[in-house]
């Protein structure tokens, strides 16, 4: 006789109590396992990286900090095996302000302080008094120019005394602030239906982009000079800023054109169907989407532009890199500060460029409306 088929499941009459996850999966150990030792290949890479770090970090710290000299009047007094930082104390102002007169350093500092709200109102919404803040941001360049150059009752400082990191900031920020709007116009111009506008944009972009920046700088410094009357010279800083801005505008326009291309033509047609004019269509429909897509490229161009400001050293302006080289030729320090001065300059650039890059990531997240 066939027995009744056994049920292949049975009801559990009591729940198994929850147990903690295995120690190898959670906590420090779990993190190590999943991130560093998940396979033999990753284990190998981890070990190799650790060895490399061990070989690099302690000597680097030893050189830059523990075995370094921090005080002294000349390079002669730097006798330790490590870096020589004794110059920082007497030279830091020149690295920051260049040949700007010391009695007017406060003006640079005030301009920098005023920059913070000006930038904040551009970058972040939801700030108090945003309506007035925008106007303040727009007028900031004028305020900064008066503070830095003088006039209107303030002592004038010729722009060729600008130098150090301040010069990098002035040239870089002016370039950034101007190259975005000019780049947008060029990108729109390149897609325009009017041949005059289109060809003018194409010629500008291709000519400027097809020439190295350093060549443009030499044109600004040398060739322009031959057309000006003797003993009259357009400030070098102005020429440099014009060239850097033109150069990055050309790059910027291509980045933005990439964003424009990626907007489906349906958006364009829909906006037209709504009866929007060209500028309204661009401002309300096309550009917000195109710019959002272009953020990484735009910030990339900004960072490149900011670092390009060091090229002014080749035409005899002393930005922070120029100051570093200048100190290297000072008989008191010669041969002692070749690496240290460059390291300090690099640190300044890293801080600024890294902040820009972090902000761009933040902005991308904030504006991301599609993939959430």
């Amino acid at each position, binding site marked *: 006789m066939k027995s009744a088929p056994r049920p292949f499941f049975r009801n559990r009459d009591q729940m198994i109590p929850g147990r903690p996850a295995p120690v190898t999966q959670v906590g420090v150990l779990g993190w190590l396992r999943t991130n560093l030792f998940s396979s033999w290949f990753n284990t190998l890479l981890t070990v190799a990286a650790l060895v490399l770090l061990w070989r690099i970090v302690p000597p680097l710290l030893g050189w830059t900090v523990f075995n370094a000299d921090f005080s002294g009047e000349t390079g002669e007094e730097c006798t330790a095996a490590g870096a020589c930082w004794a110059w920082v104390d007497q030279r830091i102002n020149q690295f920051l302000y260049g040949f700007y007169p010391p009695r007017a350093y406060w003006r640079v500092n005030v301009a920098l302080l005023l920059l913070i709200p000006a930038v904040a109102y551009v970058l972040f919404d939801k700030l108090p008094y945003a309506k007035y803040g925008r106007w303040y941001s727009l007028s900031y360049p004028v305020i900064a120019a008066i503070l830095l150059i003088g006039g209107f009752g303030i002592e004038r400082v010729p722009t060729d005394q600008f130098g150090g990191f301040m010069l990098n900031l002035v040239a870089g920020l002016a370039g950034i602030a101007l190259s975005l709007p000019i780049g947008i116009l060029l990108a729109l111009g390149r897609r325009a239906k009017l041949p005059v506008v289109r060809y003018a944009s194409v010629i500008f972009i291709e000519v400027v982009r097809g020439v190295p920046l350093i060549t443009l700088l030499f044109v600004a*410094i040398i060739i322009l000079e031959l057309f000006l009357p003797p003993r009259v010279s357009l400030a070098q800083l102005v020429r440099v800023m014009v060239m850097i801005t033109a150069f990055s505008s050309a790059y910027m326009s291509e980045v933005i054109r990439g964003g424009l291309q990626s907007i489906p033509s349906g958006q364009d047609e829909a906006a037209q169907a709504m009866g929007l004019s060209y500028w309204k269509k661009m401002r309300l429909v096309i550009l917000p989407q195109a710019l959002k897509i272009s953020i990484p490229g735009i910030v990339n161009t900004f960072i490149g532009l900011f670092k390009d400001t060091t090229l002014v050293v080749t035409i005899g302006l002393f930005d922070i890199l120029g100051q570093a080289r200048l100190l290297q030729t*000072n008989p008191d320090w010669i041969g002692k500060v070749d690496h240290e001065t460059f390291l300090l300059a690099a640190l300044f650039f890293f801080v600024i460029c890294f902040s820009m890059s972090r902000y761009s990531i933040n902005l991308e997240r904030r504006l991301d409306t599609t993939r959430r």
Partner: protein
Amino acid sequence: MRTTNWAKGAVMALAIAMAGVSAHAGTLEDVQSAGVLKCGINTGLAGFAYTDDMGTWTGFDVAYCRAVAAAVLGDPDAIEFVVLTGKTRFPALQAGEIDVLARNTTWTLSRDVDLGLTFVGVNYYDGQGFIGRKALGVMSATELDGASVCIQTGTTTELNLADFFRTNNMEYEPVPIETNAEARAAYEADRCDVYTTDASGLAATKATFDDPDAHIVYPEVISKEPLGPLVRHGDDQWADIARWVLNALIIAEELGVTQGNVERLAGGTDHPEINRMLGSEGSYGEMLGLASDWAVHAIKAEGNYAEIFDRYIGPDTRLGLQRGLNALYKDGGILYAPPFR
């Protein structure tokens, strides 16, 4: 038709403006009315042009600028320094952006003639040399067959080096490097046997090594590099002033006139040439278009040639350069200024 006329007019105006640049005479009046001398200097060269703690320009070439400013304007600080690279220095001078260029520039025919510049003298006789390790066992540059040579690219030193090795039938392996500081580091890191640059640079380089005595500067100097200040073609009065300021500094050394005693000697001495130079006899300042005590101001600015040399590049500085060729003719050098009379 109207446009062509307009274009013609513009071209004419431009041509006149350009002609105005090249034939512009009256630099002295320009400088005096501006109250400031525009002097072109190096972007930084140990001993010759560098900045001190306060960011003030100083150095051997800078001292000459200050002497000219003192002679012309009576104030050694009435200067606007225009910092120039190797590439921007000549256009800046040609275009009138500067009045005088004192930027360790080698006097060559093409620069003097073709570029339309006027060298007003030599303030430092330099020449290309070699530095090597004593451990190499070589005592002369003529024994360097097969050596690897660290060299800064894009300079005349490259050409001189090739010429020297070819005329001596020797082989060498060039190690090209972009800047002087990198070349020095490469030599120190043993990437090449010897390092070549101008002798003044070699001495400065040697002084920075941890163990200077382990290195030797070979006696051979393979090129002539007479470095001097220069002005534009076409303004002889201004060139004369620049030339005689330099001469006055050299003659002051010859005659024992120093920064310290120049004021006292200016009152009149038994030595006729000192009197002529310092203006208590004759009207030599007037001939130049300057005040009679122009040389007093020039010497008071930074001292005579020897004082300037010793202060910035001489044996007691970190550069530790010997006078060598730059000694007065009566001390075995070739420094020889025409007389004041």
